[in-house]
């Protein structure tokens, strides 16, 4: 079962801009769209493919166990529109990613809409902020 992570209620910007569709292919039925989970760990793989790009992150729990997380986004062309590329992540990167957690409690998260006017979820790669 999944290691417990802090879950922060996502407010503020999400409420302000929440009157536009927040996701293209997933959303309400699969992810907690108004919650946050911070996925902090080491990238093991970055899959830059259709239908959705996804990054795999090994997260060390409090007791030293490793949880294998996946954070997915949209298709590569949509992600290019908002500044991603095949080089955005690579194995070994240390990351912190603010994602919507899966409703079933599994270690899977979602970054939401790739519309350029949707709010960006915070991503830090090797200490540098990639998105706000």
């Amino acid at each position, binding site marked *: 079962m999944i290691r417990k992570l802090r879950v922060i209620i996502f407010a503020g*910007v*999400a*409420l*302000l*801009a*929440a*009157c*536009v*569709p*927040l*996701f*293209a*292919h*997933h*959303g*309400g*039925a*699969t*992810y907690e*769209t*108004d919650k946050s989970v911070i996925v902090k760990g080491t990238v093991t793989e970055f*899959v830059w*493919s*259709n*239908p*959705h790009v*996804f990054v795999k992150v090994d997260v060390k729990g409090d007791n030293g166990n490793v949880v294998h997380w*996946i954070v*997915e986004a949209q*298709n*590569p*062309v949509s992600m*290019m*529109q*908002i*500044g*991603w*590329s095949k*080089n*955005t992540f690579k194995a070994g990167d240390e990351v912190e990613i603010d994602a919507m957690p*899966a*409703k*079933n409690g*599994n*270690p*899977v998260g979602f970054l939401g809409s790739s*519309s*350029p*006017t949707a*709010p*960006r979820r915070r991503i830090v790669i090797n200490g540098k902020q*990639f*998105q*706000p």
Partner: protein
Amino acid sequence: MSKCSKLPLIALLAGMTIAPIVVSAQSAQPAAGGDQAKQRVWDSLEPIKPSYAGKKSGPAPRRDISGIWDAAEQDGGRQPSGALEHPALTAPRGQGVEGGRPDETGIMRPLHYTPLGLEALKANKPSGPSVRQVPAALANDPVDQCDPIGFPRMELFELRTIELVQTSTQVVYLNQFYGNFRVIWTDGRELPTDPELRWNGYSVGKWEDDYTFVVETVGLNPRSWLDHAGRPHSEDLRVEERFHRVDHDNMELTVTIYDPKMYTEPWQGLNKFPLHLQPPGFDISELLCSPIDYAEYNKQVGSAVLPATDKK
């Protein structure tokens, strides 16, 4: 579910304010925008709406719809919840995505089905966000397995960038999302009767006036869905498109569905949907569907987010 501000004006203003801030914060690539789109030679970026809203344009050329036309940065180009004029939602703008319903009870602008149409609707299990959504790994959307999108779904789902090439006898229509092409004949031929069915149908077009090109399409394979919410169609479907060249840089697309076997009245999937002319050097990014990639995604991600009781 997503909470929606009760003050839509604030939300709109916040969105319009956030947009340039978000765009300028991109560090990895040049930001999307009207001028930046010219700088990027390959994989051109679709300009975002604020960059062209309100810009004046020259007069429309006569009998000419050729060019590279972008739709995606309109709110509705991607249409994840179904055709823009009839999203399968119970509330406006992204709400009403709780999923799991077999039909469209309670949606904002419901379609009116025949008994056969309703039965066909219920058999389609969509993965996109709507009142009818099921988890991706349980969906039976043919496009999720890389079957052809077909027509008119290529306009009622993921209408992004298209290229229209006009010759003396054809308009050749190239569509970015999952790589579709269709030929619209303008040589005066009649539509076929009782044709072999095609995913993209048989199309003829003619000019109603110097600025309005009207296309009729028949012979459509009923295996394709009409939109991402799983609306069905029969072999008898007839689709009318109206391409109206408003001025030099702007065109409006209206798509009307005629299928009396499935729907008790015609309905519009798109109504004067705006398309914007791009510079001739705009390089359309490739967006193809790989069954191998899709299967891998479903294996690693799709099944991991299934509700525990629904795992196959």
